[in-house]
């Protein structure tokens, strides 16, 4: 009995994370309180972020985790601010067209999953760069600069939009961005 190689641990970690991610994802729609759903979702997101760490994407994984934590906190605050059921005290099950949705989702899953195994994915070309984060930075400063520029403007637009929409009567209380 040799000790399992690193690949085994990695694999085991991945499957564990995957199980957590999917289970938490399912839990989002199973639990009967919105707050719990939020935290289930956060768990799922974090599990995926962690799984990214397994494939050399440490930077991105962390980004995902951090952003998601922030986002979920915002969501929690939001629910507490506005929603009628902040504490998730009342049982909550609000679905429509449950069977149809399940059927569609199931079909999609079956099709996609079969695609995953049937499609001959391309061979790997090139190797992982020594520092993926550095490569990402170069790329953002290079060929993908426009993406980030547009994303920036989109963030600006979102700020304006949310402000305009969410504040009562436009700029009554708000100022510019």
């Amino acid at each position: 009995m040799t000790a399992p190689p690193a690949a085994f641990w990695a694999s085991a970690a991945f499957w564990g994370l995957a199980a957590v991610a999917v289970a938490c994802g399912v839990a989002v729609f199973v639990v009967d309180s919105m707050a719990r759903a939020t935290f289930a979702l956060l768990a799922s997101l974090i599990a995926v972020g962690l799984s990214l760490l397994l494939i050399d994407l440490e930077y991105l994984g962390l980004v995902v985790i951090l952003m998601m934590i922030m986002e979920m906190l915002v969501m929690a605050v939001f629910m507490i601010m506005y929603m009628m059921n902040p504490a998730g005290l009342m049982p909550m099950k609000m679905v429509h067209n449950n069977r149809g949705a399940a059927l569609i989702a199931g079909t999609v899953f079956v099709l996609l999953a079969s695609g995953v195994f049937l499609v001959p994915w391309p061979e790997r070309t090139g190797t992982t760069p020594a520092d993926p984060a550095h490569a990402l930075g170069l790329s953002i400063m290079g060929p993908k600069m426009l993406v980030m520029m547009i994303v920036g403007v989109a963030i600006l637009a979102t700020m304006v939009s949310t402000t305009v929409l969410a504040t009562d009567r436009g700029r009554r209380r708000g100022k510019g961005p």
Partner: protein
Amino acid sequence: MRDDPLDLLPELFLLGGAVLGLLACAFLPRGRGRPVAWICALGLAGGLAAASVAAAGPGGTVFASYALDPLTHVTRVAVAAATLVVVVLAAGGTAGGRSGGAGGRRLEAEVHVLLLLAALGTIVMAGAEDLLVFVAAYLLASVPGYALAGLGEDSAGTEAALKYYLMGAFLGVLTLTGVTLLYGLAGTTAYGGLGGRLPSAPSAAVACALVTLLAGVLFKAGGVPGHFWVPDVTEGAPAAVAAFVTTVPKIGAFAALFRMAGGFFTASTADWRLLLALVSVATMTLGNLAAFFQDNVRRLLAYSTISQAGYLLLPVVVAGRGDLAEPALLFYLGAYAVTNLGAFAVVVAVGGDRLRDHTGLAGRSPWLACALAVCLLGLVGTPPTAVFFGKLTAFAAAWSGGYAWLAVVAAANTVASVFYYLRWIVPVFRPGETVVAAPPGDAVPSEGAASPGVAVPREGVPSPGGVAARKGLARGAVAVACVAAAASVALGLASGVALTLGGP
């Protein structure tokens, strides 16, 4: 790599206009939105001028993912011009009348900023040569739109915004799925790289990826099955915004789709032409059928824009086959934008959404009635309006690309569409009925753009007296309608020039 920011001067003008407008919003007192409108209009005008100049300049790819070619140039010009028109329509709403009457809300000055941002996103969408740029631009083009739809802050407007947002978000995620799949299949997101790698990819997977990618494009274009928001948003949003969201995003979406189709669809082994042809048939048929018995002119126009999207898909279907497809698409887009804006301007001017609000319009305002007739007949495709030539070239392109049957279906659909356009035109020229005075609580100044709350009578709830009861017609909107109608005819008559410019 070319990355001279001057190549993006038109986009920068728009961005600058938006930012300056935003600053003006922050410093100007409430209710004084006119300077913002001017700033934004200037930004648009600058963008228009810069785009015109750039059209004569050298083409090529800048920033490794942005194309400068006729497709981009025409989109820049068309989007900027159309947005300018909408700004005029919206400004007419804010500046024209009483401030904040009973139940009425005026559009905030931010509307112009949002319009500019959405226009910017639309343009970038058209010019994108990288799927990631496209996704980002999609986001940029969509997000302000959601806010615009909900600007009225009334029940209908927010519902419109909600639906718009939900559809956009969902289909946007699907698009992102498509992008991810394509990336997985090709290992790159640039159009050029995709074109090189896709031929070896399995066709079923590519087909799946293309369909999901299409979801967002069809959302912006208002095509089946991404069309569901169109009627609801058109009805619920302020009229000027409705004019914007049914016109401008379509331009960008079709330009982007055409670029994708020519760029890497053709390289794939999937039968994407069939895919688009099916979508086209479904879109035009559904749009036409659903428009048949609309009593609400905005919904009618909304469905008409859906059917127009179906026709617009014709040249895209045959992208890359023959030299007619691109000029056909570009010309049709311009023609459609002008004509559709004209029709919406009439709605803004009249201020009433029900068909009967338009009865006897010819008696009240013959010019407006003529403009409406020209625009609607233009949408039918009656020569010599511009849409006719658009349709003509589109049919010709489809035929020469081997899709004659699609042209036949489109022609049959056109005939069906005559019915509902005439349902609108005829009462307009009927001798007018006496206009009933509106109850004071319902009376809102004529700025249709400013009054979505009452301009949207619910079905089943009779709106006593109707909103047509208003005495005046919004002057700015009347002017816009007449100019648009004249432009529609002029563009048609001068289609030779337009096609020559857009063609090469």
